[in-house]
């Protein structure tokens, strides 16, 4: 069997809230609950991690990057535990697993020119042997991403639009050539007209440098456009996985069905016909303590759902769902 690029094995992360000074009750919030998935080693893939806010998407991203320690479970990158990577060969791990953040305004230091994020990367990872080589690498990479170096180099961050700043991050990826990029809501702060340019660039990058990507978003329209595979999270648990197209077109899990039916379709002739159940929305913070986490909102709830936790099982070829409807 081929070695996966990244493998998460039963990753769980608990956060404790409250309990300060013994005045409030201490509660445990489980942000990631027994999460396991793999990213294949050979074929570069864009994997979308979707779910509502609070579903644990960003927690998983931060665990993969080694910014958070999981409470239990392990993360293997090329077969070795991330903790080992970070201890023994931090630089190699940082080079191979990169991040694109949500806020293109916060990541640049306003006092430095934008070139710095590119040259720093070249220097840090020793990508060029001379200044001239570095310059030509930067220029070439920018051209490859459809940006005009003469317009952007030497500018300060405030002179660039959000779209340009995010695309500059992709240029940085093209220089560093990581094997995996974690992109957390990378286009949510960019204008609509520029979003698809970024997404097309990202897909282009996948083929060009054989880079896999974990794309985190709550926007299923975007996830559908950019990703090959999809993982749907609900309250920290994986409820459904599979190839993006079938997951969105024929969702198996009632939670995914609910999400998909709430996507606004940009066509006034295809308006929603149903209304959202208000109870659904009002008490969304509640999760069932026992049994299936979605059982209190699920329209197909059965007695067993309140008692047992449905395992993630293969329903069809390449499609897995955690739901007792598919036993």
């Amino acid at each position, binding site marked *: 069997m081929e070695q996966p690029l990244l493998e998460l094995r039963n990753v769980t992360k608990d956060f404790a809230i409250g309990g300060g000074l013994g005045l409030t009750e201490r509660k445990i919030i489980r942000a990631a609950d027994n999460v396991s998935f793999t990213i294949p080693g050979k074929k570069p893939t864009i994997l979308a991690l979707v779910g509502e806010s609070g579903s644990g998407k960003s927690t998983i991203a931060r665990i993969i990057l080694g910014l958070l320690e999981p409470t239990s479970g392990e993360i293997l990158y090329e077969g070795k535990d991330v903790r080992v990577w970070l201890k023994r060969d931090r630089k190699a791990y940082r080079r191979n697993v990169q991040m694109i953040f949500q806020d293109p305004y916060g990541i640049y230091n306003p006092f430095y020119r934008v070139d710095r994020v590119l040259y720093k990367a070249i220097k840090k990872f020793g990508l060029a042997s001379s200044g001239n080589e570095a310059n030509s690498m930067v220029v070439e990479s920018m051209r490859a991403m459809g940006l005009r170096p003469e317009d952007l180099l030497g500018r300060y961050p405030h002179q660039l639009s959000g779209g340009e700043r995010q695309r500059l991050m992709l240029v940085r990826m093209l220089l560093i050539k990581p094997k995996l990029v974690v992109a957390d809501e990378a286009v949510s702060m960019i204008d*609509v007209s*520029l979003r698809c340019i970024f997404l097309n660039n990202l897909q282009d990058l996948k083929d060009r440098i054989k880079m896999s990507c974990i794309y985190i978003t*709550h926007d299923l329209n975007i996830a559908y456009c*950019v990703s090959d595979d999809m993982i749907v999270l609900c309250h920290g648990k994986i409820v459904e996985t599979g190839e993006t197209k079938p997951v969105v077109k024929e969702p198996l899990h009632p939670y995914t069905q609910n999400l998909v039916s709430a996507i606004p379709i*940009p066509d006034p002739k295809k308006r929603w016909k149903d209304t959202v159940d208000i109870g659904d929305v*009002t008490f969304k*913070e509640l999760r069932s303590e026992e049994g299936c986490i979605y059982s209190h909102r699920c329209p197909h709830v059965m007695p067993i759902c309140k008692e047992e936790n449905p395992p993630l099982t293969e329903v069809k070829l390449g499609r897995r769902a955690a739901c007792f409807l598919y036993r």
Partner: protein
Amino acid sequence: MDPILQVEDLRIYYKSIFGDIESVDGVSFSVNPNEVFGIAGESGCGKSTLVEGVLRLIYPPGYIKSGKILYENKDLLRLGDEELRRLRWKELSYIPQGSMNSLNPVLRVEEQMVDSITAHTDMPKEEARAMSIARLKDVGLPVEVARMYPHELSGGMKQRVIIAMAILLKPSLVVADEPVTALDVVVQKSVLQSIANLRDNYGITVIFVAHDLAAHAEIVDRLVIMYAGKIAEIGSVYDVFEDALHPYSKLLVAAIPSIEKEAVEGIPGLAPSPLNWPLGCRFHPRCPYAMPICSKEEPPLKEVRQGRYAACHLLR
């Protein structure tokens, strides 16, 4: 049918050391009673400034250079402060961008609602309280919410409390600026439906500002597409989505990622800076159909077909 609101050649500028920033630059449109009127466009195109101007909420360094805002044949720009204050909330109400985060954290929802009522009417407190609860029910919130503090509510619930506050005194016009931005899909759907409800069940006219065209497609009746401080196109939402007249609206509709589409293309180039609008048509540097005239003359907004307006030299 007489329009409820008519805006004529409105110009709103911001003073700066580089000269005036022409944020809204000659905008005219009218809003019919009992419709959801959408305003869409990229960030920085002047959507928010426009609606703030309509409610006369522009503060220095911004100022309203010229224009008319007729609300039921009264020019809002000529009203005295006291007269305007009496119109606000009772007839015109406003849901500012991000207002769900400005609920007072130390007051119960009910108290904040009662405050707004007593500030604008001389209704007794008990009656005001009953009315607040009724409005919460109108937007589909359970009664218990009235006794809760903002931190006990989810984002969608807070946004609905804000909508309930906006309709407290049964206004005829509600202006909602980006009310569904930063909400989850399911919550977004419920809030959008509450807004459509204002029109369907309470006969309230809504001006709905959002950058997300998919949200417009779900609830809006007529849609304005703005670009660089000007109106590019006005038409029914069906017309704009199906057969946009202006190249910018056409490209913008094509650029929305959707589960109904396999591939999408963005619009190359960048939105221009309001300090330095391009000469002629402001979209010409990004327009695939640009002609020589486009960089010289500014195209006027014209009625191209019945009820459909666009500003483009192609449509002469």
